[in-house]
């Protein structure tokens, strides 16, 4: 990825002086914008599973993230 250090620094910098709720909303907006740039919903669902699998160590990737809550 080009300008990786710039991007990383800008992500951190964007949160400066925001409280936790404001930070969360900023991230949420950014994620939706990025999801739109990715464009393909299947790809976004795969990335959500990837991010979830990498988190905390205790969380198993079950593939359920894209399945919704019904049924």
């Amino acid at each position, binding site marked *: 990825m080009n300008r990786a250090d710039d991007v990383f620094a800008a992500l951190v910098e964007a949160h400066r002086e925001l409280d936790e*709720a404001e930070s969360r*909303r900023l991230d949420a*907006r950014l*994620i*939706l914008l990025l999801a739109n740039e990715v464009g393909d919903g299947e790809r976004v669902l795969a990335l959500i599973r990837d991010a979830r699998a990498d988190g905390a160590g205790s969380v198993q990737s079950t593939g359920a993230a894209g399945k919704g809550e*019904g049924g």
Partner: protein
Amino acid sequence: MQAALKPSRVNPVYPFRKPADLDGRERHYPVCVVGAGPVGLAAAIDLKLRGVDVVLVDEDDTVSAGSRLICLAKRTLEILARLGVGPELAAKGVVWNRGKVFHGDELVYAFDLLPEEGHRWPAFINIQQYYVEEYLVDRARSLGIDLRWKTRLTGTEDLGDGVRARVSTPAGGYSFTCEWLLACDGVRSAVRDGLDLPFRGRSFPDRFLIADVRMKAAFPAERRFWFDPPFHAGRSALLHKQPDDIWRIDLQLGPDADPDEEAKPERVLPRIRAMIGPDTPFDLEWVSVYTFRCRRLERFRHGRIFFLGDAAHQVSPFGARGGNGGIQDADNLAWKLAETIGGRAGPALLDSYEAERIPAADENILNSSRSTDFMTPVGGAAEAFRDAALSLSRRHAFARSFVNSGRLSTPALLAGSPLSTPDCADFEGPMQPGAAAVDAPFDDGWWLDRLDGGFALLHFSERDENTPKHPEGIAMHCARSDGLLAARYDGRPGTTWLFRPDQHVAARWRSFDPALVGAAVDRARGRS
């Protein structure tokens, strides 16, 4: 609280009449329907039109209090028109196709649910449930259906080849037997409770105020939904126009609201006043405070008992999927029972009720759960994403697709139905085996009016030809391959479609072959 409610209409009362059954001799009926709501009435009328005698029992003696189910979707209107109450609904209902979603006082987006011409029915009409029930009761009476009011089901007994039902009435109790029993007795189904069947799913913590308000207002006939409106900060609101200058208002109250307090006029009136402004006089017709649940029975059939509508599945109201889903249950089951009772069906036909309607219920539950989750986010992440979608949607069109104020009821596709014959050719357009037939103008009328209750074929040709020879008892309709009907059915010359008695597509081919039609009809009757 009663003093402040000013209903403008008195619901009809249907008298209890002593049935002959009270003499102690046990009668036998082909079908008993429990519950005279929209679903039970639709099922009873559909069966009667197909020549099946029905006993319909209801514990009450009148129609719905309050508007409740108000949005009749296009597919429901097509079904109810086939059952004979189309003219009444068209005369009374408020037509709408468009909706608007606001965030604060800004319009986020508008949508049109029926952007093309050439359909008998609009995307939706709004009408109070009591009118729907009244028209259906009148229709049921005119057909001679045995309606038994003030007749409460107290128990059922599985007889293997039938069901024994016990009822209580003001003149005493009695029992009768029937071949099939249809439980259409709503969310608090006595039939379901009697069988001790688990009704599992999710509860949503937020409470909602639902009110019918009578006023002269100039809002257009469209669905209006607000997130965080100035008149109801931090929560959501929904407005629908109904007949008789009555407006339906749904206000989100949050999880901590006290339902008894919130239903009191001194709490309700200021909320309505804030919404409609200081100058418009209004009266409160009906008010109720709800929490929403999404849940269903694991199976919709237990021996000779079928569950339909809210007795089988419950959804939150966003998307208008409760009543519309329930009436599709009735539409799906009635012809299958009639074919079975008439000896024309294989056992797989009745099994297909679950195969077709459980996925439909799951689709409704999924959509209404997601809408409710969007409106009532639980937890910081859910709230952050909801707020992000709303704030981005002002500047970015893509974000509007995330904004979920209710995904409105569409007909079940019945994809993968065991009754459908898979395609052996390519077709263009959204129609497919399992889908409900789409309407179009046809011979100075409407195509769906021709699909009036039996199996039917539609054959396209370049010029008016003689009707090809077709299987007995199956209606044959011929159409030119250049009209709007042909456009909607990819009707190149030779193309032939087979429709089931509930107007869903059973099969389609690029040429007409009586042997293939016969095999597809057999399959759609559960005989192969």
